[in-house]
Structure formats: structure tokens, C-alpha cells
């Protein structure tokens, strides 16, 4: 293999460039998004999951180390913080609509996210998952950009947290209608709030496609839940951690 074909030279040049990581990230996401739209926005066809799986396969086949990939992809990653700030807009739009319901939502959100964290951590720990895995359950019920920020603050893996968050979003978006129907919850704003807490961004997309009010409340609930968790989780954990050992 000593003969240097022009194509391999091009390849060596390209794979060393940040552009390559950006291209696979964006192209696989674009493909995933197309499939998602084609499937009439079926939550099982999650563009993020498709993009992650394809990108993992591509970099494994090319034997590209993750660090190398991330060097390029960090330009996309960087925008997470900006996207978090942008959540202010749906929260504000929600505020205008929910006069007289703010306190109720606050209580329900706190109850929901407490149950979410406690159940996930308890089950994972009880079933013998490693500390790495259990730790990453803490922030998984928060929208991914905020969840990763929290993960860094509480010293657990942002990567696993992001992965668990994506899976949670998929499960939530798929299961939410059945759970809510079984519980006979009919009001759109209550359904939306529950979906926003349980299923993040994907749930919001689903909620918007069914009912606008549900979508607005879902966006708002997701944002508020993120803020509450970002403020509360590090504080609660400082006191709790010495007792549970994770």
C-alpha cells in the first residue's frame, strides 16, 4: 500500500480537517431528519438517535478516535449553551398564557422531576449499575443542553447524561399519549406540561403537532424544569451525596 493514490492523499487531508467531523455530524442528522419527516414524525424515528448511531459507526469503521472527531464537532457542541439561552423565549411565551397556573405548574414540575430522578437513580442502583451509569441518571430528565451543564457541575459524565436524555425523550414521546389516556388526563395544558417534563424536545415536537396549547406548555415546562433542576440539583446533591455514596 505504498503507492500513493491521489484519492488517499485527499483522504488524509480531509480526515485531519475539522470539516470532516462537521460533515458527518450534519449529514447524518440531515438524513435522520429526512427519515423522521418521511415517517410523519414518528417518535421512534428519532433524528438524533439516527445521527448518533451512524456517526458512531462511521468513526469506528474509519478508526477515528473520539477525541479527534470531537475536535471538529465541537463547533456544533459549542452552540448548546446558546440554545439553552434561547429557551428563554418559549418560557416567556408560556408565562403570558399561564396566568394563575404558575404556582400549580411549579409544584407539579418539582414533584415530577423529583420522582424522575429518585426512581431512575434508585432502580439503576438497585439493579447493580456502575457508579458512572447511576450518576448519569441524575440529570437525564432535563433537556440535554442543560442536563450536560449540570452533569459537568456535579462531576458525572456529560456524555452518558446526553445519551440517557435522548433515550428518555424517545421513550417519553412514544409512551406519553398512552400514559395520559390511561390516567384520563384531558386538558391540553396539563398533557403538555407532563410531556415537557418527561419527554423534552422530542415530546414538545409531538405536542405541537397535536395541539398548539399543549406545545406551548410543553416548551415552557421543559425550560422551567431545566432551570429548577440546574439550581436545585447541585444543592441537593451536596447534602445527599455523603449519605448515598455516589
Amino acid at each position, binding site marked *: 500500500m505504498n503507492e500513493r493514490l491521489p484519492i488517499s492523499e485527499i483522504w488524509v487531508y480531509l480526515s485531519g480537517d475539522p470539516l470532516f467531523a462537521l460533515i458527518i455530524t450534519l449529514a447524518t442528522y440531515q438524513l435522520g431528519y429526512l427519515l423522521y419527516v418521511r415517517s410523519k414524525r414518528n417518535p421512534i424515528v428519532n433524528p438524533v438517535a439516527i445521527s448518533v448511531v451512524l456517526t458512531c459507526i462511521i468513526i469506528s469503521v474509519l478508526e477515528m478516535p473520539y477525541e479527534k472527531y470531537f475536535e471538529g464537532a465541537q463547533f456544533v457542541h459549542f452552540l448548546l449553551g446558546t440554545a439553552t439561552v434561547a429557551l428563554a423565549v418559549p418560557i416567556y411565551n408560556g408565562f403570558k398564557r399561564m396566568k394563575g397556573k404558575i404556582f400549580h405548574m411549579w409544584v407539579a414540575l418539582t414533584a415530577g422531576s423529583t420522582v424522575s430522578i429518585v426512581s431512575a437513580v434508585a432502580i439503576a442502583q438497585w439493579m447493580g449499575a456502575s457508579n458512572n451509569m447511576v450518576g448519569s441518571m441524575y440529570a437525564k430528565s432535563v433537556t440535554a443542553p442543560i442536563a450536560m451543564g449540570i452533569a459537568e457541575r456535579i462531576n458525572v459524565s456529560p456524555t452518558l447524561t446526553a445519551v440517557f436524555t435522548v433515550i*428518555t425523550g424517545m421513550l417519553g414521546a412514544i409512551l406519553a399519549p398512552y400514559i395520559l389516556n390511561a390516567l384520563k388526563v384531558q386538558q391540553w395544558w396539563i398533557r403538555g*406540561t*407532563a410531556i415537557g417534563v418527561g419527554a423534552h424536545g422530542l415530546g414538545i415536537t409531538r405536542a405541537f403537532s397535536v395541539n398548539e396549547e399543549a406545545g406551548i406548555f410543553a416548551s415552557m415546562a421543559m425550560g422551567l424544569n431545566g432551570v429548577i433542576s440546574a439550581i436545585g440539583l447541585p444543592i441537593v446533591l451536596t447534602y445527599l451525596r455523603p449519605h448515598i455514596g455516589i
Partner: protein
Amino acid sequence: MIEGLVQLFLWQGLGELASKFLLPSIPGPVLGLIFLVVFLIIKGEVNQPLGQVADHFRQHLGLLFVPASVGVVLFLPELKTHALAVSTALLVSVVLTIGVTAVVLKVFWYVSLKYGKGQRHE
């Protein structure tokens, strides 16, 4: 587009500064978000470029956490070992989260409606 992005970057920067010097336990972008919400409430409206950019971000939020999620390749062996524990925890937790949030909100809302009416009758 650019106008909206500049606004977001400025709020993010402000949040990062506040996080660094005042409240290190809260991520900078979350503080930026809080500042922006307060600003919007005071101002009473979302300007169009900001609304537009925020909408784009919301639609493709997922793309932004692909790079970090791809890091899962580093955890594959560990994930395989604990696959059952992890998937059970995630599944049960999602069902409980959605169920509890909805029920608490519904019950609390009806209780306070009743209570509110009762007060009016008195």
C-alpha cells in the same frame, strides 16, 4: 438572523460571567436564560430576530447534542454490562415522571378551583 444570534451570545456571555464570579453551581447558559426571561418580562415582547433564532434552535436542538452523544462509543462495553439496569431505570422513570406530573397538576388544579369557588360563596 445575525441580530438575534448577537443578542443570545450577549446574554450567554453575561450568564457565563455571573456563573464564574457569583453563582458557580449554576451553569452560565442557565443564568443567561434566566436573565433573558426577566428582560423579556420587563420589556413585554420578543423582538422578531430573537424569536426567529430561538425558533430555529428549538426545532433543531437535537443536532447540538450529537457530538457529545457520540462519546457513547467510549462507554459501550460498560453500557453492555449494565444494559438491563439502565433500560429498566429509564423506562420506569419516564412512565412515573409523566404520570406523576400530570396527576399532581390535575388534582392540585381541581382542588384549588373548588377551594377558590368555596371562598367566593362565603
